[in-house]
């Protein structure tokens, strides 16, 4: 009954959607003006060659501020929801069933561990070249976040705990998110508008160019990497505890 009703309205919905989409220009005939104007002014006025990054961190940086805090809020939410679980588990007896990394051969472990270095370098490269080539704070931050995961998968648990010291990661996340807001407020302090560029633009094409775009990209990288690690950590915390007890006992 419910399904019939749903099927009928789904068909209606799709037809209505399609009727609306017929009013669009055919794919391939984008007519501007917004994107074209930004394509034209991004290099001369912001010294940023990757226009998408320039939009994300400057022209529409306010969107990204909101988006960073969506990430921030979700990570806080994940911590909030998983928190009780951890409190309970401390009271429970340790089980002999470690939900740890999947059993892997030594060669495999060495391989994953060897990937950590390149991942970090690649991530940093992407973060720092955001304004020049495809990539930026998000993408680089996400790649950076996979590095600790590699350490975890390779079974080096103590090292994993060391590189993901909760307090450090927490502070890093808050710095990234709060720093973004601070950069915005710095514009006000300089007598300009919120999120307006206040740094020298530098030479187009060099790493330290395009003023606040570069700075915000780096801050976003920190935020994203730390946020993901923080969320991952609270997921894995339980497994880690059990494994360590198993090793000690």
């Amino acid at each position, binding site marked *: 009954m419910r399904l019939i009703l749903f099927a009928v309205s789904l068909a209606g919905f799709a037809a209505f*959607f399609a009727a609306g989409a017929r009013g669009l220009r055919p794919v391939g005939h*984008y007519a501007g003006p917004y994107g074209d104007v930004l394509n034209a002014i991004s290099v*001369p006025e912001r010294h940023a060659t990757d*226009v998408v990054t320039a939009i994300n961190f400057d022209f529409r940086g306010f969107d990204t501020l909101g988006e960073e805090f969506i990430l921030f809020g*979700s990570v806080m939410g994940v911590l909030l*929801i998983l928190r009780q679980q951890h409190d309970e588990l401390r009271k429970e007896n340790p089980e002999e069933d470690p939900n740890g990394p999947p059993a892997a051969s030594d060669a495999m472990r060495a391989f994953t561990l060897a990937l950590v270095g390149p991942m970090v370098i690649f991530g940093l490269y992407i973060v720092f070249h955001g304004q020049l080539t495809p990539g930026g704070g998000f993408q680089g931050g996400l790649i950076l976040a996979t590095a600790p995961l590699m350490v975890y998968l390779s079974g080096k648990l103590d090292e994993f705990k060391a590189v993901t010291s909760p307090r450090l990661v927490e502070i890093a996340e808050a710095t990234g998110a709060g720093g973004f807001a601070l950069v915005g407020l710095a514009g006000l302090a300089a007598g300009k508008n919120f999120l307006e560029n206040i740094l020298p633009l530098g030479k187009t094409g060099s790493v330290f160019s395009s003023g606040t775009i570069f700075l915000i990209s780096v801050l976003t990288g920190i935020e994203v990497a730390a946020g993901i690690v923080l969320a991952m950590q609270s997921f894995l915390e339980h497994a880690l505890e059990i494994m360590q007890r198993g090793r000690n006992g």
Partner: protein
Amino acid sequence: MSGLEWLMGWMGYAVAIWVFAAGLYGIVTSRNWMHLAICLAVMQSSTYVLLLSIGYRTGGAAPVFADIPVGARAVDPVVQALTLTDIVVEATVLALVVVLAVQIHKHSGTLDPDKLRELEG
């Protein structure tokens, strides 16, 4: 050839509608919260396809002016920026849904919304 181009002209939108509808169908018929989360992701990918189709320009380059001169024919960078934001939003909401689903399973032993009709008003 023009037939192919005509096809291309609407295919992006058609796929966006298709994907949205498929995601909705999946959500409504889902018997498992994890499955539902993935259907939500599918539904959300519809907006990426729609946005990028809208901003595409035949023969346009990517909006990165490192190797091409300013003023060269390029696709719309705005929809790409929007899609990027959208991807991050989707991922974070999905993370919340998955964590909540795991907690539900922990307390009730099931992931099936049908068996969880506890909220009846």
